[in-house]
């Protein structure tokens, strides 16, 4: 079981539920999976074979394998999944690209030209009647709808949060 505080040099497994929580600021597994369900309609069963871990202030990782709790001396444990400990939680580009295809809401589909601009990091003004906040931005490729990354929608604009190293001019 993890310590009460948060130690930025190690991976601590998220407590399953509020009853097991010792650090009041740490997200629980249930909260993190409920967030994906409520925001995007990705069912918690999607992650049934994964464990969730926190390293540093609020960065939650998703891991398929076996590790001790806490785990020290490793650079990465699975993929970065979700940014917590802030008012609006944010899914990572990696997680959205892999699991966003299970989403049923808050997905905005762009046409080819807009998808290329989004990938290049440009701000767009697409038609959108839904929620503000973080959206899964997708397009059509090889006959299916595939997520590109995360967009932040506010005041009629869609800001690309594709990390600089992942932006491309296609």
């Amino acid at each position: 079981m993890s310590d009460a505080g948060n130690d930025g040099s190690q991976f601590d497994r998220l407590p399953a539920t509020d009853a097991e929580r010792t650090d009041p600021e740490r997200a629980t597994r249930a909260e993190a999976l409920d967030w994906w369900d409520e925001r995007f309609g990705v069912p918690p069963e999607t992650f049934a074979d994964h464990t969730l871990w926190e390293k540093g202030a609020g960065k939650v990782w998703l891991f398929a394998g076996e590790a001790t709790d806490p785990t020290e001396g490793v650079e990465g444990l699975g993929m970065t999944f979700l940014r917590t400990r802030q008012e609006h939680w944010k899914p990572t580009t990696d997680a959205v690209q892999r699991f966003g295809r299970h989403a049923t809401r808050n997905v905005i589909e762009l046409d080819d030209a807009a998808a290329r601009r989004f990938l290049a990091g440009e701000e767009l003004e697409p038609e959108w009647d839904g929620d503000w906040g973080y959206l899964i931005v997708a397009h059509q490729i090889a006959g299916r709808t595939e997520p590109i990354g995360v967009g932040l929608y506010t005041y009629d604009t869609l800001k690309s949060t594709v990390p600089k190293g992942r932006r491309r001019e296609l």
Partner: protein
Amino acid sequence: MPNGASMDDPLSRYRPIVDDYGAFRAACERPLPKAVRVNTVKATPDEAVAALEDDGVGVERADWCDTVLRTDTDRPGNTWAAVHGWIHGQEEVSAVPARVLDPQPGEAVWDACAAPGGKATQCSALMDDRGTLVANDSNLGRLSGLRFNAERLGLTSPVVTNRDARNYSLKPFAFDAFDRALVDAPCSCEGTIRKNPDALAEWGEGYLDEISTLQTDILRRAVQATRDGGTVVYSTCTFAPEENEAVLDAVLDAEDCRLAPLDLPLTHAPGVTEWDGQRFDDSVARAARIYPHHNDTGGFFVAKLEVGA
């Protein structure tokens, strides 16, 4: 220098062991065909081919491996398929060792020298991204490339570590031995001559002594860290027997392991049992030497070891 080679022409020392030396030298002069591997965690080979063709990239499937595609672009990274992590640029022959290792879903697998991650991420995909794939590299600078690749490919099974493989500790893990280990060892890289014409620039016998000691130490640790009945694969991209069969010979002497037969669907030659006056254990013939002229790829060496009883 052994076998009458000169510093000006290090490859000439392999004349006695290469089956068709003229074809070998001619292939080493030609540029390497571009290839990508399909990341089956995110897409099927058919979907990857469709996406590449939509981007105007010509694709030919490798007949020996359904996830290896030859492409007619120099920049397969500049495609939607790469952006989505459906493909990873990886030389065709470098897809061999993970196939030989054959990691299974749920296993604990160690890639001792993993950066920049082509083979490690291929192992994760072969495991259906289930289990623990420990991707280690001692070079911190190269580790960022490994992490970038694992992230883009959307994998959740890799654990990335930055340690010396020679005295690697399993302390952070919830298991006390690996099921399988891959040692794709640092080497003199002669086999990469087709993509890197400067690969032979630092070649020399002093370097060979130093690198073969490092290779032996890493492979010994991999055998020790793998459970009885487990598998260890040793690979390099060099033709030098000092870095290949001689390393196997030393590890067979020192550790509880043996060479296993390879079932390799690519043209190759057997490991050499004699070199430069030295005789190796006969079983090193079970290793495979893949020369550039065999399959129009880079050069490669691969061997499969069974650990313990």
